[in-house]
């Protein structure tokens, strides 16, 4: 009997949860009316989106978002997102635009409108102590490997290569756990790892494995916002043409990535 009551209560809560959803008008109109573009970006991911000491979000992706706002002639507001909530935020209209290091995946395209062409790319690799001498992904078998909650490659790394994933909420915790020796390696985006290995404090660490799952990143708008998507598509082409992304990489101290260079060549 208790269980039934419990189920009723639970069902009531769920019902409250479902009674939502808003049909928005054209996003561009809404943004202009509001005078503000709300963009979901990362806040714990150097150099793509991170905090300065005043608490403002800076980085490559916030700068790109600012370009969009300038083009529309409105102000910009950044909403910090994490991997596990960024698509929900966009879907529910909490943000207008998401530029948050998201890998372009077919199943994600069903949920949000990922704009072509891709603006960036990275693959999966690990950061590990040089003296471990990792050679191939299979070397991770049975070892504890730090990861970030909600990242898609956690599952692949554990199922394909038999690593024991120890998933943390943020990068700071994962880096600390790696440095503390709690994990043999940290599985993450290769672009971030390359930047890390150049850091003096991480000189004993390397990126030893061949990059896998090299996949482009997509920025996204809500499904059905075709006018906005077209505008974003033009923006991305323009970024590639003018070398804006290469410029931002340099500004935030990362080596120019092959993908950004190739796209610059292609659209030049």
């Amino acid at each position, binding site marked *: 009997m*208790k269980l039934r*009551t*419990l189920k009723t*209560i639970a069902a009531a*809560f*769920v019902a*409250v*949860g479902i*009674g*939502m*959803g*808003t049909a928005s008008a054209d996003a561009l109109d809404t943004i202009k009316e509001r005078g503000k573009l709300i963009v979901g970006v990362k*806040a*714990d*991911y*150097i150099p793509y989106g*991170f*905090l*300065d*000491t*005043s*608490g403002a979000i800076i980085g490559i992706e916030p700068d790109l978002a600012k370009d969009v706002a300038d083009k529309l002639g409105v102000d910009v507001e950044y909403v*910090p997102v*994490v991997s596990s*909530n960024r698509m*929900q*935020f966009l879907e*529910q*209209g*909490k943000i207008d635009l998401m530029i948050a290091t998201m890998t372009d995946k077919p199943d994600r395209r069903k949920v949000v409108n990922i704009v072509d062409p891709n603006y960036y790319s990275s693959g999966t690799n690990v950061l590990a102590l040089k003296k471990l001498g990792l050679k191939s992904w299979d070397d991770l078998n049975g070892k504890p490997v730090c990861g970030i909650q909600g990242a898609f490659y956690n599952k692949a790394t554990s199922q394909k290569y038999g690593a024991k994933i120890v998933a943390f*909420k*943020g*990068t*700071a*915790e*994962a*880096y*600390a756990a790696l*440095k*503390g020796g709690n994990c043999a390696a940290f599985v993450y985006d290769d672009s971030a790892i390359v930047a*890390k290995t150049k*850091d*003096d*404090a991480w000189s004993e660490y390397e990126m030893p494995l061949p990059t896998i799952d090299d996949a482009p990143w997509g920025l996204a708008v809500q499904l059905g916002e075709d006018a906005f998507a077209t505008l974003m598509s033009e923006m991305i082409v323009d970024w590639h043409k003018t070398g804006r992304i290469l410029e931002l990489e340099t500004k935030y101290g990362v080596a120019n990535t092959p993908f950004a260079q190739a796209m610059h060549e292609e659209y030049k």
Partner: protein
Amino acid sequence: MNKKTDMPVMLSKPIEAPYTPSALSYWHILPIIAAMMIIPSLAFSAAGDEQLSPLAVLKNWIPLLLEGFVFNLVISVCAMAVGTAAGTALGLGQISPNSLMRSGSWFVTQFFRNAPWLVLLFFAMFLLPFEFSIAGLTIPMPDWFKAIIGLSLPVMANVSEIVRGAIRSLPSGQWEAAESLAYTRRQTLWLVILPQCVKRMLPPWMNLYAILTMATVLASIVGVSEVMTLTGRALSAEGGRPDLLAPFYGFVLLLFFAYCYPIARYTLRLEKKFAVIN
């Protein structure tokens, strides 16, 4: 007071001297926390001398962290207000003459009391909508608001128990006397019972508030920009230097201690004061 017992050793009056926590002032605890913050980072000091020292880095971030901490306090006050209002209603429901009401309130109380705070917080985060639409009016529901709701659920259940306990602890003569004076049930409750309960409820209620304040950091796990979240972001903005962890987390410990310890002392004082009266 002659109690019947099979353990006569327990009969004599409890010893007279009540416990007085040897007055630990801030000056005893602050150095401990300071040491906790500094010593671990010394262990790393050998590495890289062109970097800012950990405490200098911390100094840069302190204004932001304080801002985050104020946010924690705002969340705690709001959740306490919501939880107390709902909990009082639920507690009164637990002593309602209507048996359906009674068992319903009892069940809700037990349910939310037994669920871990963190699980309830996840529950509120994921299952509440991002915005409400009421009669064409769209009210957005930001994360911090959901955190307040998530945290007020366990507060509600605990307040409910506090209210029930306090009312039960009053001698039934109070009810009977009021009844004989032709007070209605509602009048008895509001004019006779509850005023007397407030005093009994205050210390446990304040304890609960301290617990709630400390639970606000849980909101970091679900992504609200409070002090722990900001600490995590600050640490990653500094590139995940391991020597920064102790000063940063130590600083957060310090903030909470500075806020909760006085509350705990004051609660203890109140407890003693009311214990004499009763």
